């Protein structure tokens, strides 16, 4: 006969408000096998846990139920307490009467009945719980950083400085990300390149950091502590080890195409580095444009290359590397194609490969009447940058004239789910203020207007920064712009000033849109490759919005920077360092303990359909041959590798022959639980 203890928690008033805990405890004490009950204010408190341990020891309990909050909160707490009291931790179960009961009901009678049911179900279930032992697993102390923007750079440096072997996978030919595009940065107006490039060089030179530039993560298998990444090193057609970065090739290349780094404002050669300070300085050949690769014409770069490092036959290379933890830092893009509303135009290469339905709605219907001088914030950054296409002189794209009047429009695509996204893109107020200053500094007699909805400048030195922008001449007009039309060489901006209630028309030479930050166009695929969650916009989801903001939904995978939500540089860097700290904590032990709640196959029953092999997201299931006693082949069967299994249970649902059991969630346990709730349906 079982000796079960039931501990009902009031959670202060959280549970007691809608559940009569004393009544639940009394009901439980009447159930078969229950020899001890408690009804207590805070089971998770120190005295609560002492009471729990004491009962186990004194009453010799062989199973315990805690009717309290979600197992996500305190299952581990009570399992550890049980272990300390000499009871196998897997003989402890939680009945969730808070999240699944008291918090969602307001009728106490209903709440009490439901709590009784939930607890009773657990009592019947636990009679089938078997003691389980934890597994010890090895741990690979090497970290992978996906994305080499400022987030990835910071995380990699922090880790390497703590002695961890780090690999960065960056899909562009150079590290740097969007920050490399910025001219000067708010709130201090220091030069972005100047603060960023030393870090890039530091990454390059650090003996513990390996950079895989122009590479992509193709597949990820395994689990926390034991991931295996398949990295596709895209063919650069340049031999890394030989290249000195002298630049002969890209200077001599006779062909060109739009530069992605320069937002299509100028052209770049076909063999190129994205920007002069690129790290690594090894160029790549754009195989979609190179005439030598496409039709065997040209080949000039190979002729001029001193060390002979151009190889037109190079193929993509696949590398398989083991990692213990992963930091995702894939960043953001500006919302593509918000220009329609404003009659604007977009360089063709910016069309993202995968658009969300919402973005698709915003696509331009035609290019007719396009306004070349309507640009986005990153394009403005390039115009204002000393290393940009105009050498830092602000000139408009159409005719290269210095614009005398510039209109900045805030919240383009943000805070409006009909025209874009519903969230506030948060950094646009700040970079717009910065843009007005950069403009005023470059064009002293120029006039700048900002159309805004609200100013959101919550940050250290941020409000002051906005005031400074206004002092330096920017005229802020509270209101939206309804239309942009061409008027001779100018753009007629039709707007409204909602403070005075008047229509405002401005004839501008150039218009800068403060476009919303959105996730990378392929963020959903990246999330699926990594096996992490993402929200409806495509930002990667954190494990808990408050208490676990840098952990992804998958153990061992952490999130840094703008791939998780809209962020400026200080926040990005802070989060990146936080991920490094998390990885260091994980790597502080030499091996990992794994829960024994894994799947096990009944190999005689298994009919080798391999459905489980197909569904297992962790590739934990192998096909094995069973032999008879003479060593002859007898039958095929599935085998679950307990080291890889995460206990998700998907294979259980796929297996029609019920040949797989998930330890801790066996058919008998679940069946007992369901039938305890009972009720004939038909």
């Amino acid at each position, binding site marked *: 006969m079982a000796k079960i203890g039931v501990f009902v928690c009031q959670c202060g008033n959280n549970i007691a408000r809608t559940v009569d805990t004393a009544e639940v405890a009394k009901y439980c004490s009447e159930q078969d096998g229950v020899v001890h009950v408690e009804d207590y204010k805070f089971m998770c408190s120190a005295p609560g846990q002492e009471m729990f341990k004491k009962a186990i020891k004194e009453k010799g309990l062989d199973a315990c139920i805690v009717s309290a909050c979600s197992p996500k909160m305190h299952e581990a707490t009570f399992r550890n307490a049980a272990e300390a009291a000499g009871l196998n931790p897997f003989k402890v179960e939680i009945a969730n009467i808070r999240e699944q009961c008291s918090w969602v009901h307001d009728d106490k009678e209903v709440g009490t009945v439901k709590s009784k049911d939930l607890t009773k179900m657990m009592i019947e279930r636990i009679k089938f719980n078997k003691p389980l032992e934890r597994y010890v697993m090895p741990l690979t102390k090497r970290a992978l950083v996906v994305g080499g923007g400022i987030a990835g750079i910071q995380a990699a440096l922090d880790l390497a400085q703590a002695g961890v072997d780090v690999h960065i996978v960056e899909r562009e030919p150079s590290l740097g990300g969007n920050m490399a595009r910025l001219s000067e940065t708010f709130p201090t107006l220091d030069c972005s390149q100047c603060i960023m490039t030393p870090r890039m060089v530091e990454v390059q030179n650090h003996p513990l950091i390996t950079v895989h530039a122009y590479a992509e993560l193709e597949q990820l298998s395994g689990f926390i502590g034991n991931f295996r990444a398949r990295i596709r090193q895209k063919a650069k057609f340049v031999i890394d080890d030989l290249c000195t970065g002298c630049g002969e090739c890209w200077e001599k290349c006779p062909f060109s195409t739009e530069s992605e780094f320069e937002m299509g404002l100028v052209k770049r050669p076909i063999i190129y580095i994205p920007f002069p300070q690129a790290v690594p300085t090894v160029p790549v050949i754009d195989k979609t444009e190179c005439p030598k690769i496409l039709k065997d014409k040209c080949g000039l770069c190979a002729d001029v290359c001193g060390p002979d490092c151009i190889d037109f036959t190079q193929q993509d290379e696949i590398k398989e590397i083991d990692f213990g933890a992963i930091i995702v830092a894939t960043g953001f893009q500006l919302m593509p194609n918000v220009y329609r509303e404003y009659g604007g135009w977009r360089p063709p290469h910016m069309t993202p490969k995968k658009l969300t339905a919402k973005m698709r709605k915003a696509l331009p219907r035609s290019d007719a009447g396009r306004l070349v001088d309507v640009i986005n914030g990153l394009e403005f950054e390039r115009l204002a940058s000393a290393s940009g296409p105009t050498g830092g002189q602000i000139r408009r794209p159409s005719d290269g004239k210095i614009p005398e009047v510039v209109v900045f429009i805030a919240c383009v695509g943000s805070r409006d789910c009909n025209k874009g996204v519903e969230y506030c893109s948060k950094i646009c107020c700040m970079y717009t203020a910065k843009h007005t200053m950069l403009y005023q500094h470059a064009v002293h007699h120029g006039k700048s207007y900002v159309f805004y909805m609200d100013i959101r400048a919550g940050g250290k030195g941020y409000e002051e920064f906005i005031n400074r922008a206004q002092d330096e001449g920017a005229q802020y007009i509270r209101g939206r712009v309804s239309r942009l039309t061409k008027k001779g060489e100018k753009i007629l901006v039709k707007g409204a000033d909602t403070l005075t209630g008047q229509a405002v028309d401005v004839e501008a030479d150039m218009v800068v849109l403060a476009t919303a930050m959105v996730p990378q166009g392929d963020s959903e*695929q990246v999330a699926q490759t990594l096996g992490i969650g993402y929200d409806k916009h495509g930002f990667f989801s954190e494990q808990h919005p408050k208490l676990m903001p840098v952990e992804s939904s998958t153990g061992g995978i952490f999130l840094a920077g703008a791939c998780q939500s809209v962020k400026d540089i200080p926040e990005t860097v802070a989060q990146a360092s936080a991920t490094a700290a998390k990885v260091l904590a994980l790597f502080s032990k030499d091996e990992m303990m794994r829960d024994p709640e894994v799947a096990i196959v009944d190999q005689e029953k298994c009919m080798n*359909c391999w*459905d489980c092999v197909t569904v297992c997201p962790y590739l934990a299931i192998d096909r094995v041959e069973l032999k008879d006693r003479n060593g002859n082949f007898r039958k095929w069967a599935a085998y679950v590798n307990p080291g890889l299994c995460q206990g998700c249970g998907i294979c259980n649902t796929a297996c*029609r022959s019920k040949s797989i059991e998930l330890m801790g969630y066996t*058919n008998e346990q679940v069946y*007992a639980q369901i039938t305890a709730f009972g009720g004939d*349906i038909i």
Partner: protein
Amino acid sequence: MIEAIRNQARLLLENGDVDVVIGYAEGSDPSRTTPIFIRKAEDVEKLIYDPRCINSLPLYLNKRHEYTRKGWKKTAIIGKGCDIRAIVQLIAENQLKRDEIYILGVPCEGVVSHPEKWDGSLHDGNRASKCIGCDVMTPHETDFFPGDKPDVDRSTPYEATSKNVATLMELELDKRFAFWRTDFDRCFKCYACREVCPHCSCNTCITDETTPSWIDPAAHKKGVFSWHLTRAMHLVGRCTGCGECTRACPMGIQVDLFNQRMKEVVQESYSYKPGYSLEDKHPLITYKVDDREDFIK
């Protein structure tokens, strides 16, 4: 046509290319045919094929059946299109290897719904519902086929849905439920529907499980409903629509209505047709980035 098949079967047996040929022979009365296992070349004359050849022969290829344990290395089987769907599905589910099987494909103009309906010819009054809208009258996967194989477009959904499914779907939910309640009253759980299905391949059927008994073994409403619903779910994306379950039911319950409906849902939701690809895994266990997600609310 059948002469060509017989000749090929004879050749296969004489050369020792196959151990057995599974086909149809004349049955106990003129309206019936019977499955036959031919091991001697001289017996091939017994082979026939016409609209009375209803049985789904791939059933015998299912590992669950003793026939496959006779040590035969290679089996030739006469297959009409819908049966070949079943063979292909067995291969896709790793229950059979393509090279263990030699498929003698037959051109098919349809079969009768039940031997009792046979009156000497096939017509709209006695044609099996699965044959309406069939896209494999010229079979898709064969090793031998008498005559030329025309190019057939198989990209569209197969089979018009039987009228009975459509009628049921038009009913209000409670009426539909009432229909099943009365119909299932007759089920006494003989499991003929399971035994005849080429795709029921578990070593232990879930309904025979005892620790725990997920499906109540008794033939009361609960036991019957849980059996039939589980059976239907286990065949989603796998049933190749032979209709044998309904034909085998001694109580005349149209159990394959469930399977037909599920086939429709799968085709609509995932554009997937079981039994056409030797490799594809069924949609309930696979995920594609483009899969519809509109049912996730």
